[in-house]
């Protein structure tokens, strides 16, 4: 990392480098793009993945934190910070030309903090309507409901995007751009549609059956979880993580717990670690089963859908017996887990492992080699490795494009450096690679559980934790591997009992942001199938 520091100082002399939890570099807003480009172009260790883009109101200024890491080694991380003191018309430079994933994130920051990004080709508000009054994540936001009354009138969707562009001679020009052509045949897939896996809205321009362009509208179930968290204590915030990607509820919660535990220096008992990892892997199997089922259903095979549900039921029963919850299990708490495992737990899990292996073979016989299914998946929805990195598509989808991006391997947390498992990587980048990746990851998860289930040590399941936790001042990042990709937690604490700013990185947002790219030129039915293979969950995007 010393080389990197040199590189940073060579590029931007006045950059302030601090050694915090991560290497943090603060630069002026007009130097940020230059620095990001230098880091991006660094041949030895290119910082080509934008993990987080966190907009925040720092009080004296409105700013953005960028967490960059290298696609070759995810553990090499660097945080860039910039900001502007102008609260009336805050402008920063966009990094969309380097990181495609910045696109939606910058639009989100604009909606929630009012920062506009120069050179972002489409600066509409994400999540919020264009006419929303105020910027919710600013500390001086006025939440008076009269300002933004609930309307029952339907609003026409305007397909014109404003933007701020910089001309060659350095002048800023405000103009607009039309998203669709004048005579495009546009259908709305969503917000109410059987295959969007939630309230997602794709404006889709069609040429006959062929998808010409997709425009993503999100925010139909935006709940403002990040804003809500700013007024709650850490144990209270835990419950929100379950409501993001509800299918990897336990893993999300694990992420937040670890972030808080690291910050507050709480030692988690060994037994709790084991229970957490076993539960995480069961959750991953559960999520992959549902993804498999939903995908087969998207392709029109209803029976396969039910088969997936049948196996998933057993996992849910195990959850049910452990802690009473099924989908959202409320098991992880700060310091450990809430409930100890029940006496028959090991027996049930051990019975499940061979059963699931048998069923995986059945899935293979029933669907994976079906000639129609193959025709609907192979060479469909191709995503190159470069695209996956640029859009920061992680999880089975990113690994289907040949990008090794498993956080459990790169930045092992909890017990993952003690267990042996394979990272499943395929290089085809099509729907079928993503599909097979999920099935293979179920097998790997079973393998992980197998290694742990007999060795659960005795002891406490939860450390002694004060009812009100105050984190020391600082910035805390935690990245975990959720079922759909990398889930991240960022906490900025100012020593209070609630966070100053809390940000969740959602894997699904990256998955959806890649949809317009990989669906272009495919048939409308394959658009649905590709959506199934990407496996996004909408509450995770909307937060």
């Amino acid at each position, binding site marked *: 990392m010393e080389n990197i520091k040199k590189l940073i100082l060579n590029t931007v002399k006045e950059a302030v480098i601090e050694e915090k939890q991560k290497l943090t570099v603060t630069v002026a807003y007009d130097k940020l793009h230059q620095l990001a480009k230098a880091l991006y172009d660094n041949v030895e260790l290119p910082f080509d993945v934008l993990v987080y883009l966190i907009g925040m109101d720092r009080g004296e200024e409105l700013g953005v934190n960028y967490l960059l890491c290298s696609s070759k080694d995810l553990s090499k991380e660097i945080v860039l910070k910039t900001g502007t003191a102008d609260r009336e018309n805050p402008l920063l430079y966009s990094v969309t030309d380097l990181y495609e994933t910045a696109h939606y994130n910058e639009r989100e920051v604009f909606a929630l903090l009012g920062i506009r990004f120069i050179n972002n080709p489409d600066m509409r508000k994400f999540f919020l309507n264009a006419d929303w009054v105020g910027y919710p994540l600013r500390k001086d936001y006025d939440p008076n409901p009269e300002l933004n009354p609930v309307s029952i009138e339907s609003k026409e969707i305007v397909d014109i995007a404003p933007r701020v562009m910089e001309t060659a001679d350095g002048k800023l020009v405000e103009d607009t751009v039309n998203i669709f052509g004048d005579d495009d045949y546009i259908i709305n897939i969503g917000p109410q549609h059987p295959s969007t896996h939630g309230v997602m809205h794709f404006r889709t321009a069609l040429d006959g059956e062929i998808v010409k362009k997709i425009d993503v509208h999100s925010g139909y179930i935006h709940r403002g979880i990040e804003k809500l968290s700013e007024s709650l204590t850490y144990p209270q915030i835990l419950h929100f993580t379950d409501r993001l990607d509800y299918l990897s509820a336990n893993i999300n919660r694990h992420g937040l717990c670890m972030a808080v535990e690291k910050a507050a220096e709480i030692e988690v008992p060994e037994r709790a670690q084991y229970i957490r990892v076993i539960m995480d892997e069961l959750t991953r199997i559960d999520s992959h089963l549902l993804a498999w089922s939903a995908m087969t259903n998207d*392709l029109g095979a209803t029976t*396969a859908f039910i088969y997936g549900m049948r196996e998933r039921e057993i996992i849910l029963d195990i959850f049910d017996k452990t802690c009473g919850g099924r989908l959202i299990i409320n098991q992880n708490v700060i310091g450990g887990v809430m409930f100890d495992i029940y006496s028959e737990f090991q027996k049930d899990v051990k019975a499940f492992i061979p059963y699931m292996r048998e069923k995986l073979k059945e899935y293979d016989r029933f669907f994976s080699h079906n000639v129609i299914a193959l025709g609907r998946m192979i060479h469909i929805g191709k995503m190159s490795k470069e695209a996956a990195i640029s859009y920061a598509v992680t999880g089975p989808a990113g690994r289907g494009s040949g990008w090794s991006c498993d956080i459990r391997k790169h930045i092992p947390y909890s017990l993952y450096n003690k267990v042996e498992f394979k990272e499943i990587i395929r290089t085809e980048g099509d729907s079928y690679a993503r599909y097979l990746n999920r099935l293979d990851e179920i097998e790997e998860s079973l393998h992980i559980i197998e290694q742990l289930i007999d060795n659960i040590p005795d002891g406490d399941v939860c450390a002694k934790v004060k009812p009100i936790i105050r984190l020391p001042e600082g910035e805390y990042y935690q990245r975990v591997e959720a079922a759909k990709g990398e889930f991240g937690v960022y906490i900025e604490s100012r020593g209070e009992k609630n966070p100053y700013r809390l940000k969740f990185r959602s894997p699904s947002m990256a998955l959806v942001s890649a949809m317009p790219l990989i669906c272009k030129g495919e048939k409308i039915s394959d658009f649905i199938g590709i959506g199934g293979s990407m496996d996004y969950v909408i509450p995770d995007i909307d937060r």
Partner: protein
Amino acid sequence: MVLNYSQPLEISNLTSWLDSTLRGNLSEFWALLIEFVLVAVVLLTAYAVIALILIYAERKITAFFQARYGPNRVGKWGLLQSVADMVKILLKEIVRINRSDRFLFFAAPFFMIIASMLTFGAIAFGKGLHAIDFNIGVLYVTAVSSLGIIGVLLAGWSSNNKYSMIGAMRSGAQFVSYELSAGFALMTIVVLAGTMQFSTMIEGQRYCWNIFNGHISSIIAFVIYLISGHAETNRGPFDLPEAESELTAGYHTEYSGLQFGFYYLAEYLNMFIIASIATTVFLGGYMPIQVHGWDGFNQIMAYIPTYVWFFGKTAVLIFLSLWVRWSFPRLRIDQLLNLEWKYLLPINLVNLLLMVILVLTGFTLTGLFPGLF
């Protein structure tokens, strides 16, 4: 050759008794009128009842495929479930759609249901249970059943809904394509049987079903007919016009209540019609299994009434259709058209030629072993 096995359970005994009684007491005009009305009532009732039974059977069989129970609350084993559903659908409001073409919107379901009823009338359910027996029966059935597509296209066009429109367009392309294959497959057998009349065709299959008689060629035609017939009914894996996960419900997205009921009914009846035509043309229709010279065996088989044979054979084919539907994922439109125009149609044309050669050179089973079949 006249065969007089006793067939005590035949309904034709009842109908001929009715006919003679009516004619004995009334003038020919009134006797015929009453018979026509009776036939119409029986056919319409059968239409509805068969649809209800099929819906129940499909739900129950699907449930077993999918490791579920299926309907089991209304009546014993859920037997009354489809009746309850029917009552519900009759009571539901018919929603008017803004800015739709109202006349076409209301007319469309009738095209669908009338086309399938017209075909239904030409089916030979059993000996003497045959409403119309044209000498061009096969041609008639092919012609009338293809009318249904008009209903689908109109529904898609008049609904003022883009999903419906896409569904209807898919359906148009699919129907026109697969109608060809189905027609050619039937023609292959017409060459073999030498007739287009259903009753003659069935009588001709007394000892040797058409599917065995034309061996290679017949079996190919049978498989093609099953595939294209399945495609014509718009059921998975060929359910692109409805494509629940893509187009919500395709061409009938905007229909509710009884109008939707018509489409629903017609879908199930079309499945039955395709299966029964396949039975009639390939599997000897209502004819019991008969073997040359085994008089005792033939008599026993003849005790089982012909309508049981007919429905039994049809049920087997319907089960096949359900099995396929609930096992395969959906095709994409280009794959669907590829299958038809690049594979089925050329195979079909060659097959037709092959059948002509077989018949001309006497290489059919009846031609090769005249004493046996």
